[in-house]
C-alpha cells in the first residue's frame, strides 16, 4: 500500500470531501495561496478557488462565530487554526453557541463545523503555541473530539469529521505531522468512539494519547524482555470515548495506566480512570494510574520543554511500577 505522511493523509481526505461536497469551505490564516502553515491545504487554493479557501484576518472569535452562522445556513465550514492555541480566543462562540445550537433548536439546525489545529509541545514554540486542551472540549457537551495518531487514522477520521453534522475538534500533534504510514487511496471512515489496540498484551493496559502512543510502543519490547507484557490502546477519539474497549482490556490485565502529555487534573485521564473504576472495580488488581506532563505552562528552553512532557524512561518506569503494585 501507498505510504503517506500524516499531513498528506489528512489533506487527501479534505480534498476528496471538498470535491464531493461543494458546501465545504476552509477558513484560516495562510490557508489560501500559502497552503497552510502546516501544509494542510497545499494546492487547494488553485483547486477550489478563493471562496472555499479563504484567508482570514487575525480574528479567531470572529471567524469561528461566522462559521457558526454559516453552518446554521447550510454550508460546512472547516476552521484551520494552525496552532490550536489560537482557538482560546473563540471559546465563547464554541462553548455557548456552536456546542449548543443543535440542542436549542431540537435538531432543526445542524452544526457541521470542523475545527482543526496542531497541538502539543516539543517544537520549542513555548507556552502560547504548545497547548493541547482536548480535555476541555471533552468536558463540554456537544463536541466530538478526535486525536488521530497515524496517517491511516488521520485520513479516516478526517473523512468522518467532514461528513458529521456535529462540531468536531480534529487535533493533530505537531510531532506526528511528518510521520509516514500506509494509507489506502479510496476513501474510508473511522467511526467516532472507536479505539485501536496498537499492541496486545496481558499484564498492563496502557491508554496513550497522541505521541505518547509511539513513545510507549518504543519501550514495550524492553518491558516484554523484562517480563511485562503491555496492551496498548490508542483511544483516537476522546468524545465519544470508547470505554468499552478499555474496559475489555482491563478485564484481562487488571491494570491500567493512562499516559497524556496534557494537564492531569480534570483531564481525560481522570475521566478514563473514573469510568474504568466505575465499570470494572472488581477486575482491577491495582489502582488506575495516570502519567501526565507537569501541571504548568510549557516552557521554551529545550531541557525544560523535555521535562514538561512524559519521556520514554518515565513511561517505562510508570509501567514497571504499576506492574509491581
Amino acid at each position, binding site marked *: 500500500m501507498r505510504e503517506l505522511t500524516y499531513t498528506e493523509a489528512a489533506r487527501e481526505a479534505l480534498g476528496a470531501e471538498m470535491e464531493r461536497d461543494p458546501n465545504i469551505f476552509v477558513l484560516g490564516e495562510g490557508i489560501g495561496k500559502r497552503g497552510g502553515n502546516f501544509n494542510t491545504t497545499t494546492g487547494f487554493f488553485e483547486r477550489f478557488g478563493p471562496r472555499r479557501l479563504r484567508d482570514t484576518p487575525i480574528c479567531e472569535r470572529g*471567524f469561528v462565530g461566522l462559521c457558526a*452562522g454559516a453552518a446554521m*445556513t447550510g*454550508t460546512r465550514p472547516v476552521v484551520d487554526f494552525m496552532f490550536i492555541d489560537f482557538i482560546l480566543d473563540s471559546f465563547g462562540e464554541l462553548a455557548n*453557541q456552536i456546542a449548543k445550537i*443543535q440542542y*436549542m433548536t431540537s435538531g432543526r439546525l445542524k452544526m457541521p463545523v470542523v475545527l482543526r489545529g496542531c497541538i502539543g509541545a516539543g517544537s520549542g514554540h513555548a507556552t502560547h503555541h504548545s497547548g493541547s486542551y482536548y480535555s476541555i472540549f471533552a468536558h463540554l457537551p456537544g463536541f*466530538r473530539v478526535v486525536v488521530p495518531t497515524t496517517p491511516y487514522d488521520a485520513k479516516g477520521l478526517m473523512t468522518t469529521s467532514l461528513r458529521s453534522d456535529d462540531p468536531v475538534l480534529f487535533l493533530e500533534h505537531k510531532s506526528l505531522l511528518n510521520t509516514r504510514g500506509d494509507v489506502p487511496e479510496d476513501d474510508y471512515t473511522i467511526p467516532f468512539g472507536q479505539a485501536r489496540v496498537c499492541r496486545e498484551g496481558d499484564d498492563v493496559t496502557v491508554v496513550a494519547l497522541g505521541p505518547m502512543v509511539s513513545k510507549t510502543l518504543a519501550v514495550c519490547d524492553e518491558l516484554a524482555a523484562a517480563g511485562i507484557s503491555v496492551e496498548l490502546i490508542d483511544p483516537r477519539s476522546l468524545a465519544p470515548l470508547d470505554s468499552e474497549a478499555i474496559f475489555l482490556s482491563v478485564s484481562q490485565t487488571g491494570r491500567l495506566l493512562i499516559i497524556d502529555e496534557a494537564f492531569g487534573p480534570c483531564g481525560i485521564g481522570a475521566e478514563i480512570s473514573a469510568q474504568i473504576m466505575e465499570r470494572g472495580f472488581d477486575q482491577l488488581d491495582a489502582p488506575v494510574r495516570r502519567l501526565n506532563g507537569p501541571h504548568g505552562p510549557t516552557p521554551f528552553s529545550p531541557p525544560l520543554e523535555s521535562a514538561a512532557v512524559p519521556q520514554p524512561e518515565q513511561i517505562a518506569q510508570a509501567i514497571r511500577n504499576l506492574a509491581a503494585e
Partner: protein
Amino acid sequence: MAFDNEVLLSLYRTMVVIRRCEEQLARSYQAGAITGACHTYIGQEAVATGVCAHLRVDDAVFSTHRGHGHALAKGVPSRELIAELFGRTTGCSDGRGGSMHLFAPDVGMMGTTGIVGPNILQATGAGYSFQLLETDRVSVAFFGDGGVGNGAFHEGLNLAAIWQLPTLFVCENNMYATEVPFSYAARNTDVASRAAGYGMPGIAVDGNDVLAVAEAAQAAISRARAGDGPTLIECRTYRTRGHAEGMQDGGYRTEEEVNDWKARDPIKAFAARLLERDAIEPQALEQIDREVAGQIEEAVEFATNSPWPDPDTVTDHIFSEGG
C-alpha cells in the same frame, strides 16, 4: 411614501402585534407565568418592523436578548413566542429556550442569544453561506448600542466588509446597555460613523420612524442582494420600559427623558401619519387593533393550555444523531 396602503397597514399591524404581545408578556411575567429573563421591545417596534418588511422568509435574522420583536416581525406566530416564554413544548424552541433563545429556522428566525455579540458574527456567517451558495438571500444582525464596544462588532463588520457579504448590521441604539449610558461606554456615540473604519456604508436613521427604517433597510437589502456588500444601519430609538421585567428602572435616566420618548411612540406617530397622509380610515386601524387583541388573547390561552416538556427529553438533540 413609497409603500402602498396594504404594506403600510401591515407595518402598522406588525408593530401593534409586537406591542400587545410585549404588554401581555409583561403581565404574564408579573403573574408568575414566566420565569427567568424577559426583555421587552416596547418603544423599539419600528426597527424590527421596518427592517423585516423587506425580508423574505429565506432571509436570515439573528437577534439578541431583546428579541421578541424581531421574532414576531420575521414571522414567528405570537402564540409560539408566548408559549416559549411559558416554557411549553409548543413554543418556538420547544420550551428549551425561553425569552433569550428563540429559534424558528423555518421562517428565517435563526435565533436570539443571551450573550451579547455572537449574533453579529452568525449573521456574517449566514452572509458567507448565501454568497458561497450563490443565492441572493441576505442576513441581518440586530444588536444594541451595548454590542458596539464588543469585539464581535469589530470582527464581524470587518469580515463582512472585506468579503462583501450580503449582511445588514442593524444597531438599535437605545442609549443604554442595562443602566450604563452609551455616552459613557463610548466617546464617539455616532455608531453609523464607525462604518467608515471598515470601509462599509453606514447610515443613521430615526429608529422610531418605521418608514425611515424601512427605506434605509430597503436600500441596504437591495445592495446586499445585488452582491454589493454589507451596510451598517444605526436606528436611534429608546426602550420605554425597564431593561428587563422584574428589574427596577430608576436612577440612571430621568423621568423627563423617558416621557419625552414615550411622546415619540413609534406606533402612535405612525398611526397619526397614516391617518393624515394616506387616506386610511381610523376604522382600518381600529380593526387591526381589535384583531391583534384577539390574537394575543387566543395565544395566551393556547400557551396556557399547552403541555410542558417531558423531563425525559432533557438530553435529546445534543448531537445530530441519537440522544
